[in-house]
Structures are given as C-alpha cells and as structure tokens.
C-alpha cells in the first residue's frame, strides 16, 4: 500500500516536472479601429529552451522578438521571450493559425473582427473562437450551476485569490463542488464519446442493440461498470471483460477492434494534449460587452484550456464603441436648424 502511494506521488511529481517543460504563455491582442491587430506573445520558461513544437502560439522570423530573464529571490531563473507582430486584419491571424507549427496545431482556432456603423457610435467586436473537439459530449452547463460555471471559467489567479481571501471557506467548498461535478462531466463525456465513436464505426454492420440510441440510453450502465472496476479497468478492458458486460459476448468478440479504436479516439479527445495559455484583448474605445475578465487597465483576460472547448466551441469576445463625433455635430446642427425654423415661424405667427 505504501509503495503504491509513493508510486503515485512520484508519478504526480514527474507529471509536474513534465508539465514544467511547457512554457507559460500570454497572448495579447491590441485591436485597432481599422481591424488591424498588434499581437504580443510573452512566454516564460524555467529553461532556456523554447521549442517551437512546445509553443502554444508559435512565431517566426516575421515577428519582432526580444529575450530576457528574471531571477527570483529564491534564485530560480525564468527565461522570457517576447514577440510581437502587427497583423493587417484577422485574415492574417487566421492564416497564421492554419499554418501553426506549435503544440496546438491540430486545434481549430479562428479570429473574427466586425465593425458596425450606428451613426452616433461605431461598434467593434473582436473574437477568438476554438471549435469543439468532442462530437458526442455534453455541455458543461448541464452539470454546473451559474456560480459554479463562473468559477469554472475563472483564471487561476482569481481562483487562488478567492480561495485565500475572506470567503476562503465558501470558495474552497465551491472549488470542491466544481471539481467533483467536472470529474463526473468528464467521465460522462468519455463514455458518450466512446459510445458515439463506437456506434459510428459499427454503423450498418451491427444490430440495433448496439446502435447509437440504445448505447446512449445505457451510458449510466457503462458508468456503473467503470465505477465498479476502475482499479483494474485497463486490464479488464484489454481482456474484453468490460466490453462483454456492456454489449454482450457476441458483440464484444465481433467488434473488439472497433471498440479499441473508439477507446483510443475517446482518450485522445478527453485526455487531449492541448497546451493551455492565456489570451488578452485590448479593444479600441470604450468597452461595452465581453464574456471575459477585466483587469485594472481595462484589458480583458481569458484562460484558454481544453476543458472549455471539449464539448462546445469556446468563444472569447469583446465589444467596444467609439463615438462618431462628426455625426453628433451634424445631428446637432440639423436639430438646431429645424428648431430655429420652427421658433421663427412661431414668432412670426405671434
């Protein structure tokens, strides 16, 4: 028992170290009224080793790059790379996403910009969207209430602040609740993904009892089977025991390959290799709407994590407005002109 626990602890630490290989990245988009974007990337790495394949958003020679480093009080060194580039429009950003050679190249990301002329004001909208990766998953809002959803989407720093703040008990309880529910959500997604993939692979070949609808109706049963056998899941799956329990011996034997393939597919989606980063947007004019978090300098922040676009597209958007002063002037003059005429008429009549 002791050895098991140490094994787990060591593995956790190895994962921690392994994930420390990944750079910490913040991408900031400075949006201008003409639709151009100045994109700045700041990457912090505990090693002086910025592999393109490990970068969440890579850059090339067309970017202006600066290197620096910081040494903390404890003596830890952090290497920092700052890159910036001015994109004429969002199409260029989207082109860069499509030719991405970094860690997140297989994820579909898209930027959008829209300007609306509304006479007195011009309204601008900028968004970045990541398409969902799971075809059969459940939306997270089916599992979390509004407060939990807000917590779920919060950046790590905000969560830490709340958990260490005056209402720490409340937020720690909230954190646990969100964790438990998202664990359940992930399992359900995993099962749904597997059943979806499996039924897709066996479509036309299999009988009705392993059709999408019938398997979906039995997801709770599958969940139960997993829960009962979670310690030896790997070996039981490999032996086909779990599969037999779920879809019967005949089907299990016949469709083992498809089941394994669906399992691999579900694993790759649920336990994906997306490298998290943070996205910030600074909009022109006055901010009027966003689904992000606002910092003190009115720059908006979103954490970008795979959970957010697992079962639904993740759109980070912001809207702002700039008053059209000339339109105000023209309207004012028009109003004064008409008012003057009306008053003059009244006076003459009087």
């Amino acid at each position: 028992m002791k050895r098991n626990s140490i094994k787990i602890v060591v593995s956790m630490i190895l994962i921690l170290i392994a994930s420390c290989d990944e750079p910490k990245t913040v991408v900031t988009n400075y949006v201008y009224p003409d639709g151009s974007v100045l994109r700045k990337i700041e990457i912090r790495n505990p090693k002086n080793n910025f592999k393109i394949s490990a970068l969440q958003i890579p850059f090339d020679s067309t970017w202006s790059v600066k290197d620096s480093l910081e040494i903390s009080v404890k003596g830890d060194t952090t290497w920092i790379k700052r890159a910036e580039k001015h994109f004429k429009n969002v199409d260029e950003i989207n082109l860069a996403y499509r030719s991405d050679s970094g860690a997140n190249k297989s994820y579909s990301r898209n930027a959008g910009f829209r300007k609306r002329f509304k006479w007195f004001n011009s309204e601008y909208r900028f968004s970045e969207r990541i398409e969902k990766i799971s075809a059969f998953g459940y939306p997270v809002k089916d599992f979390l209430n509004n407060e939990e959803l807000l917590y779920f989407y919060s950046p790590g720093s905000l969560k830490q602040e709340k958990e260490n703040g005056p209402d720490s008990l409340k937020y720690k309880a909230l954190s646990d609740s969100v964790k438990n529910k998202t664990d359940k959500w992930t399992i359900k997604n995993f099962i749904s993904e597997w059943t979806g993939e499996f039924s897709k692979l066996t479509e036309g070949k299999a009988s009705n009892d392993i059709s999408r609808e019938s398997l979906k109706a039995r997801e709770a049963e599958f969940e139960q089977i997993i829960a009962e056998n979670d310690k030896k899941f790997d070996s039981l799956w490999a032996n086909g025991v779990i599969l037999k329990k779920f879809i019967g011996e005949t089907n299990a034997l016949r469709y083992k390959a498809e089941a394994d393939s669906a399992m691999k597919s579900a694993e790759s989606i649920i336990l994906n290799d997306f490298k998290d980063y943070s996205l910030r947007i600074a909009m022109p004019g006055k901010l009027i709407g966003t689904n992000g978090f606002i910092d003190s300098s009115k720059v908006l922040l979103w954490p970008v994590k795979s959970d957010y676009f697992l079962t639904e597209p993740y759109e980070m958007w912001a809207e702002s407005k700039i008053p059209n002063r000339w339109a105000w002037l023209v309207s004012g003059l028009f109003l004064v002109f008409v008012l003057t005429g009306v008053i003059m008429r009244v006076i003459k009549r009087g």
Partner: protein
Amino acid sequence: MKTESEKYNKVLNILRNSRPPLDSTEDIEREVINKIARAHQKRLNLSEIIDFLFGWVYIGWVRRSLITACVILVLVFVYQQGVILKRIDVISRQTVVTDKGIVTTPTDEIEKLLLGYKNLGRRFPSKTITISEKEMKDLLESVKELQIKYKDLENLIEGDPDLKKLIEQKLIENNRTKINL
C-alpha cells in the same frame, strides 16, 4: 486782469463767429441716402437668405417631415445611448482580476491526467524526460517530505482506534477506491 479777459474774449469772439461753413449739403444728402439704401439692401439680403434657409417652415409636409426626422433622431440617440449605458453598467460589475500571475497553473494538467488515472485505471505512458540536478534535488526533497507526512498521518490513525474504525467505515460506505490506508 481786464486786458487778459479782453484778449480771451476777443479770441473766443473770433472763433465763435468763424463758424465753419458747409458748402453743399447735397453731397451729404446723397451720401446719406446711399448709405441708408445700402443698409436697407443688406437687411433685404439677410432677409432673403433667411427666407431661403427657412422657407420650408411654411410648407406643411416639409415642416412635418423634418420635425418627425428630428424626433426620430432624438429617439434613436436616446435609445442607443440608453442601451450602451446599460451595457457599460453591466460591464462595470463584471469580475476584475489583478494583473499578477495570470497564466494557468500546471495543476490543471495534473488534474486532467489524474482524473484519467483515477477513474479509468490507466497507467501513465512511459516517457523519457531530462531533468536538471536542481529538479532532481527538489523531487527527492518532496518525496522525503511526503514520506514524513505520510508516516505522521499513519501514526495518528493507528494511535486512535476510534478514528481508524471511522475512516475504514467511511471508506466501505462510500465504496471509494481512493488511496487506501
């Protein structure tokens, strides 16, 4: 004294009687009439301009249309600004973050993998990694610390039979397959 005032009076008399003659009033009359006519013309021009600019006031449908346009403009303005102000108000109540430490923490990555491990009994894929001496030191320190804490916890539970019983009971009740004691 008399002589003084006599001289003064004489000069004054001369000046008094030397009233400047106005040779012809006709020029003055003509100029005055011209100036009045020019001023009148200016006023006429101004009045013509005003009529030109504001003549529409006397045409019913034009007046009504322009007034309607004004009203619509004002309503549009009020509506737009109202909507914007409302949105700004909503925004101002949205969560504000501080600037430090805005990146995601690595524990999210661990959570994901741990979930997979915990719930699906997956083994971690074997991988080769290179770590520095410092990281090795940190790793060994953490292990040592955890071992000590684990031992303390074990002793605590072993030392209290009631506590041990309670924990074991809870584990059985919840059918949990967490790390067993």
